[in-house]
């Protein structure tokens, strides 16, 4: 078994995170945030805050450069659009002083009317065939509405950075999924050429999508460092993390499924509203309609999604954005349809199996892999026994195949190799898996390979850790560079294009066994089994870690996590880890990873695909379906909490 390289450093505390930096003369910064959901900042008086001994700089709209942000907003705008929006920032000798100074900053707000219902943005529509005909041809039409909640990422490590200048060169130690994304964005905002900005991410305590873009705190830290001539550390407190650093958008999905008596789908019609918050932050435009267009074979599809702008914190990508939300609705509906058709739910899924990417109009590189995943998950849970409390869901995911651009350098001397890449390890264990790829290509032991990553300085571009892409993007480039380095001693290779005539996807199936206490509404999940197509599984231990992590996060999504907002105040009521309930160890059932290694050699020459996101997608639907099986109660709204179950059971 090849274990995670940085495991020892992490459990002993030796691993350095953004907040662990301690530089001589370093200051601590704090952001002052709007207490109003919508207001004009009429006046800022920083005199008292700035006069506090130990306060070194105050930045606000009154005195900072007019740096553009979001569509037409500013770094510090004079209009704030949600509770938590950035108003000012303070750098001081200690975090406590910065907090004291924040309280002394006098801001006069003129509150404006706010809107939590949402301004409808331009819809996104995709259609094929003729929906009306498909509905006419159907023997059964299932019509239902499903809702998913706003979920908060709550990575253990909050967003944060330490920034310092050496002359006109800026270095940022950042907790980010995209060192190059942050480098380029920060350089643009500050009017620097990208080469003058270096971004380093040694380790990170999770990102889950919320750290895939550059946020304001990095530019603020850089500006404060510039103004004071000292290093500045800015780490978000948990409240800010939960108000202002992204979320999984809530959805309302109204859908119709039409089917023939034999289960053949004749029509899929879905209209989706998704709540995007106050800004289009970048990366939030989740493709909720995606899976409706691809998971099942159907000639007549109409799928439309509309974003709603509200005076709440902006949405951003969250592990399998769009697909986790949509899968809950579609795979619950398939379960409901199976019952209407008096058909086994897995049989119905297989009846509508597709080997082609109907959205792109080309076959998948792994056309049979979903069928194999479904069979394996069904077998592992003993589906044919039809015990009460079993639930099943399949899923697909448009990503996991990786893509250019990216490059890798390999140096090979004296039987040892060094791999240099410009990605960061989001926490999946990229160092380990990438070392394995190099070791295979060079025919040496994995321990003889060093991997350097998480730094823009070498100038080797690596992609953002998103779309489950790291292994499938960098792996092939490393493999090619390693093969060349074996001959030449040193080589750099670029990631080649993906095949044009085939579509790469990842997919899988999960099954859940649970029981429900009908009196108290308590759900006790006994087991989750998961079979995913991740192509060739390079490292089974790390693969299983992703499966366990994704399912754990999905358990929270299914059963306990929800951002609660008071509509009268525009206030998030549970921007903390006590009332925003992520699963605890006691909530995690047996999780069995039964995935097969299925090398996808059509996808890329390593045969490997990603597995970071897929495990979160199908769990919520499988749980909802299992709850229905156990109780006869169909809950169409996440999370499935005791109040909903108790009320459902009583009805």
């Amino acid at each position, binding site marked *: 078994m090849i274990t995670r390289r940085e495991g020892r450093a992490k459990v002993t505390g030796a691993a350095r995170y953004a907040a662990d930096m301690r530089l001589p003369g370093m200051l601590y910064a704090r952001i002052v945030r709007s207490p109003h959901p919508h207001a004009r900042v009429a006046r800022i008086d920083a005199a008292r805050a700035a006069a506090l001994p130990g306060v070194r700089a105050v930045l606000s709209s009154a005195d900072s450069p007019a740096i553009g942000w979001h569509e037409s907003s500013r770094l510090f705008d004079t209009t704030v659009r949600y509770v938590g929006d950035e108003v000012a920032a303070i750098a001081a000798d200690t975090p406590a002083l910065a907090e004291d100074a924040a309280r002394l900053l006098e801001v006069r707000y003129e509150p404006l009317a706010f809107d939590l219902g949402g301004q409808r943005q331009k819809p996104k529509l995709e259609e094929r065939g003729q929906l009306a005909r498909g509905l006419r041809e159907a023997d059964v039409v299932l019509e239902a509405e499903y809702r998913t909640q706003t979920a908060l990422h709550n990575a253990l490590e909050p967003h944060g950075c330490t920034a310092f200048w050496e002359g006109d060169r800026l270095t940022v130690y950042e907790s980010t999924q995209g060192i190059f994304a942050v480098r380029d964005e920060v350089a643009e905002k500050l009017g620097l050429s990208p080469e003058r900005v270096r971004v380093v991410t040694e380790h990170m305590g999770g990102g889950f999508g919320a750290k895939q873009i550059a946020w304001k705190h990095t530019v603020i830290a850089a500006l404060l460092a510039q103004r004071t001539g000292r290093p500045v550390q800015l780490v978000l407190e948990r409240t800010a993390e939960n108000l202002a650093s992204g979320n999984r958008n809530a959805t309302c999905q109204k859908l119709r499924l039409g089917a023939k008596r034999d289960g053949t789908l004749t029509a899929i019609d879905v209209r989706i509203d998704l709540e995007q918050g106050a800004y289009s932050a970048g990366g939030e435009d989740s493709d909720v309609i995606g899976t409706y267009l691809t998971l099942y074979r159907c000639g007549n599809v109409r799928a439309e999604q509309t974003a709603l702008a509200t005076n709440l914190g902006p949405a951003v990508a969250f592990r399998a954005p769009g697909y986790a939300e949509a899968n809950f609705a579609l795979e619950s509906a398939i379960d409901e349809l199976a019952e209407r058709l008096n058909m086994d739910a897995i049989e119905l899924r297989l009846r509508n199996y597709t080997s082609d990417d109907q959205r792109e109009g080309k076959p998948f590189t792994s056309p049979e892999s979903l069928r194999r995943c479904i069979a394996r998950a069904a077998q592992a849970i003993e589906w044919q026994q039809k015990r009460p409390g079993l639930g099943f869901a399949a899923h697909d995911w448009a990503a996991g195949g990786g893509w250019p651009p990216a490059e890798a350098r390999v140096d090979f001397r004296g039987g040892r190799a060094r791999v240099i890449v410009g990605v960061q390890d989001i926490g999946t264990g990229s160092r380990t898996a990438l070392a394995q790829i190099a070791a295979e290509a060079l025919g040496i032991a994995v321990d003889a390979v060093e991997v350097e990553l998480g730094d823009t300085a070498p100038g080797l571009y690596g992609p953002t850790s998103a779309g489950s892409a790291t292994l499938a993007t960098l792996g092939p480039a490393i493999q090619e560079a390693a093969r060349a380095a074996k001959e030449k001693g040193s080589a750099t290779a670029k990631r080649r294009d993906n095949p044009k005539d085939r579509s790469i996807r990842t997919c899988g199936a999960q099954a859940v066994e649970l029981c429900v206490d009908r*009196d108290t509404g308590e759900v006790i999940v006994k087991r989750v089994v998961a079979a995913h197509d991740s192509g060739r599984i390079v490292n089974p231990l790390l693969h299983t870690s992703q499966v366990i992590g994704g399912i754990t996060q999905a358990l929270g999504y299914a059963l306990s996590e929800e951002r609660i907002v008071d509509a009268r*105040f525009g206030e998030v009521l549970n921007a903390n880890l006590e009332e925003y309930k992520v699963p*605890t160890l*006691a909530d995690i059932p047996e999780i069995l990873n039964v995935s097969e290694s299925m090398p996808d050699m059509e996808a890329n020459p390593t045969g490997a695909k990603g597995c970071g996101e897929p495990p979160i997608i199908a769990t919520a639907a499988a749980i909802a379906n299992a709850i229905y099986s156990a109780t006869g109660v169909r809950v169409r709204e996440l999370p499935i909490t*005791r*109040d909903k179950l108790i*009320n459902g059971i009583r009805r």
Partner: protein
Amino acid sequence: MRVFRYSAPDTIGEAVAALGERSRALAGGTDLVPLMKADIAAPDELINVKPLLPRGIEARAAGLEIGALTPLAEIEQHPVVMQGYAALAQAASLAASPQIRNLASVGGNLLQRPRCWYYRNARIACWLKGAADCPAREGESRNHALFGGGPCYAVHPSDVAPALLAFDAALRVHGRGGERILELADFFALPEAERRRETTLADDELILGLRLPPHPGETRSTYLKAMDRKAWGFALVGVACVLRLSGRKIAHARLVLAGVAPIPWRAEAAERELLGAEASEARFAAAAEAAVQDAVPLRHNSYKVPLTKALVRKALKALTDPACK
């Protein structure tokens, strides 16, 4: 957190002399410190009473003595508590997280403030913090009170307190006039306009410890708790039940509810249903009905009514099932 002074007096007398509205005693700090961080509490001075308060559990003929500083973890694992006061050990074990239980004192546990998300948000005005009205009444009320609500609809967060009440515990309290005994039933009182908190303890009084009267060996007890997840959650509903049977007849019954009222809520009507009656499912169902007869649900918390009934029935069944004494 705002700037405060810190002092560490040498005696209880000095500590009590220093206590007041603006100077607060610091023990485990698991509630006071978060309240200060959230800018809900902003005392001028913290008085460290950790070196001064008794800690530990003593079993005596006159009952159980528990020092105020005793952490919940010690109560949870104490053999005499586990044996003779099972509901208390269970309540302690179901509270918070292991880390918090190692630090949190039982005295502080009784004094902790509500977890109501309006109360805990410094930006939102609420009655408990001095405003005219309670925003939960017409707001997000999923976690809020069924009983005793108005003007405040927050619920008391303690698991241990209902268990202690069910064992008829009393407090040893030290004030400027010296020591006195305060029945726990008198310590908790619904907040009112002139006293916007959940206890009658004066600002300059300190809890030294708890006394639990002896209970005959055949006393059975349990604490059941419903949470939003399997651990580290405040009670949606909790039920502490202490029962003594004489043959099949119920000779003694105490039922105290958590998570349903601004203070731990004794279900006296349910106790009356049980006392002197034969233990039976029908009787338990009647007691469960009686337990919720005065419930006044808000918009989002009506589920707590059937949940309370279910937990009351489960507790009674568990304590009378011959298979699981």
